[in-house]
């Protein structure tokens, strides 16, 4: 059967199970959008206000489901607008296929209207990218793109399709999607060494990251730590894997981690690191990181081994495969003394002060946790609110805390919330926690939530300033507040109404509870402006390059 390139794209999307896509039309993708129109009963296309929002939506969709997110944009500015979204997915290893149109083959390289060399631009923020030169290659390139995106260490792949290729016809044959399960093998001696280390360790700590979510192995991880009674902490990307209240969950580690996690890392004699990459927000000082411990590192990407921290035992493997192999070799233990020490640290850990008059960030998070229910998906932007959410939101499940951990993309949240909401439908609530700074970056996407009637609840931790940067200026730059107090007069209630959403202004815990309750039952996009003090800090805080000995727990 002869099909056009655009029709082939639609067929391969369906074949790959990518029946929900995000995007924005334009000149170079007219044929593609015509094919989407033709297939509108088989492919759901969500049109955003801006391509960046579409890229974040595809990313949020992928994070919430584990499926590959798909975004489509036109050539030139459409393609460049995707770049931040692609880079965000790349840094957090999120599977995504980005499809861009380009000018026709005969116009390429001539600085034609809306021409940009997007393959060159995205080379360092994709796992791989393609320019399609022949329509005959299109179907297999797209199939390969899906395979690369969701295999091994996941990530974004871009396919750039010139306009004439979308119009050209060729023979198309259906194929079943390739489900690739790369085989891993772990040397038995190494497994024995590792299990011996774990069984003999006096003060082990397990440290995990997003790899546990990607490999769907939170259950195996929980079995391991419970069997051997290993106190556990996580990076921001691992948030949600372990229930917040799990007795072995010490919480986040690193720059804004729990003190307990920091002390435990320092005193530990064995760190078991799984599906994480020792970023500078976790191993702030690589020379002094866990100096009393041997380190076991398990990661799917060989290049992560010995990249930032020197490792004693390394395993290149999918986390789930490793956990299943190691579990039978692990002895049951109670580790009474070590747990007692952990409990003592936990009792004395940093605790923010409550208030019943003004809105305190940790109490707002607590209220959201109680009211939104266990099934809710939390999506954050980047800044102080992000860390408060990571510290205090009582999540219970993987894929329920979506945040831009690696790239730290302000403006990620609304688009990602749209993607997550489209993915989970009415079944689960989606709460977007943001700051006034981040929200201003991509608030245009409220119109998308209204268009598609996606009842996303946005909670703005509104301190009127760029809180995180301002906090650094306060602590490290002698309170010289350069460009962090924008003096904006945005009325979020009117803004919400102007978009066709509902807005609430809250100044006290009671007002917030009432507004949040109304929003939960509103069945339309809602925006809640929470007025908080601009001098609220994110604490504890270990300065960049420091250790737990340098931790700041109070700053006025």
């Amino acid at each position, binding site marked *: 059967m002869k099909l056009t390139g655009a029709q082939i794209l639609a067929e391969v999307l369906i074949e790959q199970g990518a029946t929900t896509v995000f995007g924005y039309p334009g000149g170079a993708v007219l044929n593609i959008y015509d094919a989407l129109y033709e297939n509108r009963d088989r492919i759901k296309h969500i049109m955003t206000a801006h391509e960046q929002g579409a890229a974040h939506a595809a990313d949020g969709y992928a994070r919430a489901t584990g499926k590959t997110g798909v975004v489509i944009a036109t050539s030139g500015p459409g393609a460049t607008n995707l770049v931040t979204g692609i880079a965000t997915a790349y840094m957090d290893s999120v599977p995504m296929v980005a499809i861009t149109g380009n000018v026709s083959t005969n116009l390429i390289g001539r600085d034609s209207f809306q021409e940009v060399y997007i*393959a*060159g631009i995205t*080379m*360092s923020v994709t796992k791989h990218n393609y320019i399609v030169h022949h329509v005959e290659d299109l179907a297999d390139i797209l199939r390969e793109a899906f395979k690369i995106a969701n295999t091994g260490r996941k990530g974004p792949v871009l396919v750039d399709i010139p306009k004439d290729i979308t119009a050209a016809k060729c023979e198309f044959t259906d194929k079943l999607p390739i489900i690739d399960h790369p085989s891993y093998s772990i040397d038995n001696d190494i497994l024995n060494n590792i299990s011996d280390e774990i069984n003999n360790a006096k003060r082990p700590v397990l440290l995990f990251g997003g790899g546990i979510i990607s490999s769907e192995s939170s259950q195996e991880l929980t079995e391991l730590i419970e069997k051997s009674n290993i106190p556990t902490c996580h990076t921001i990307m691992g948030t949600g894997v372990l229930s917040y209240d799990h007795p072995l969950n010490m919480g986040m580690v690193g720059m804004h981690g729990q003190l307990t996690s920091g002390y435990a890392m320092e005193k530990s004699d064995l760190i078991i690191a799984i599906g994480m990459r020792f970023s500078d927000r976790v191993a702030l000082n690589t020379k002094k990181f866990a100096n009393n411990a041997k380190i076991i590192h398990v990661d799917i990407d*060989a*290049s992560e*081994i*010995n990249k930032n921290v020197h490792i004693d035992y390394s395993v290149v493997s999918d986390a789930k495969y490793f956990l299943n192999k190691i579990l039978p070799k692990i002895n049951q233990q109670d580790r009474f003394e070590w747990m007692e020490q952990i409990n003592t640290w936990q009792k004395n850990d940093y605790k923010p002060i409550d208030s019943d008059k003004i809105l305190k960030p940790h109490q707002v998070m607590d209220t959201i946790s109680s009211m939104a229910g266990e099934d809710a998906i939390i999506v954050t932007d980047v800044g102080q609110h992000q860390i408060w959410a990571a510290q205090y939101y009582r999540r219970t499940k993987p894929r329920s805390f979506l945040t831009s951990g690696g790239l730290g993309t302000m403006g990620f949240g609304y688009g990602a919330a749209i993607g997550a909401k489209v993915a989970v439908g009415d079944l689960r609530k989606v709460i977007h926690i943001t700051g006034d700074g981040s929200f201003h970056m991509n608030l245009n996407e409220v119109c998308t939530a209204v268009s598609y009637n996606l009842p996303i609840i946005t909670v703005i931790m509104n301190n009127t300033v760029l809180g995180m940067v301002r906090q650094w200026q306060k602590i490290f730059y002698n309170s010289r507040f350069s460009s962090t107090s924008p003096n904006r007069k945005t009325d979020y209630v009117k803004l919400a109404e102007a978009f066709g959403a509902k807005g609430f202004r809250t100044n006290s815990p009671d007002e917030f509870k009432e507004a949040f309750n109304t929003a939960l039952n509103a069945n339309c996009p809602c925006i809640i402006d929470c007025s908080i003090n601009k001098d609220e800090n994110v604490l504890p805080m270990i300065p960049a390059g420091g250790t737990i000995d340098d931790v700041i727990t109070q700053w006025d």
Partner: protein
Amino acid sequence: MQPVKRNVISVLVKNHSGVLARIANLFCQRGYNIDSLTVSATTDAEISRITIVVHCDQDMLEQLMKQTSKLQETIDIFPLDENTSLFRELLLVKIRADETMRSIIHEVANIYGAHIVDLSVGSMVVELTGIPNKIDAFLTVLQQYDIIEMCRTGITALAR
């Protein structure tokens, strides 16, 4: 601190347009400094060989190899050991030489096994193939003459 040394790496890649850009881009992104890089054909038209020379310590070498092997178009990557591999480089050098200088330069060239490949009224072009050290030594000797321009290819290499 680990010692920084010269490393020669051979990378077999799919012969697609843009492969060189990907490698160069990766090295640039990660801050690896390329001393020289050559791309050549192999017996398989689908595969090219890229020979890269970098100065770095062992940690960086390992990182660089792992990162490069992650590229979809990398088929194989391996370091080449100086003792078990053949390294060759080609040098072309144009020297100002009037009649009185010709025989002197010819003599120097002969000692190094270099060839005179062009002779013009005021200049000569000499060609030398050899291991990089030999080329360095030859160039040091030539310093005392008037070098107009020169070009060296960078290392191409094969395991024995």
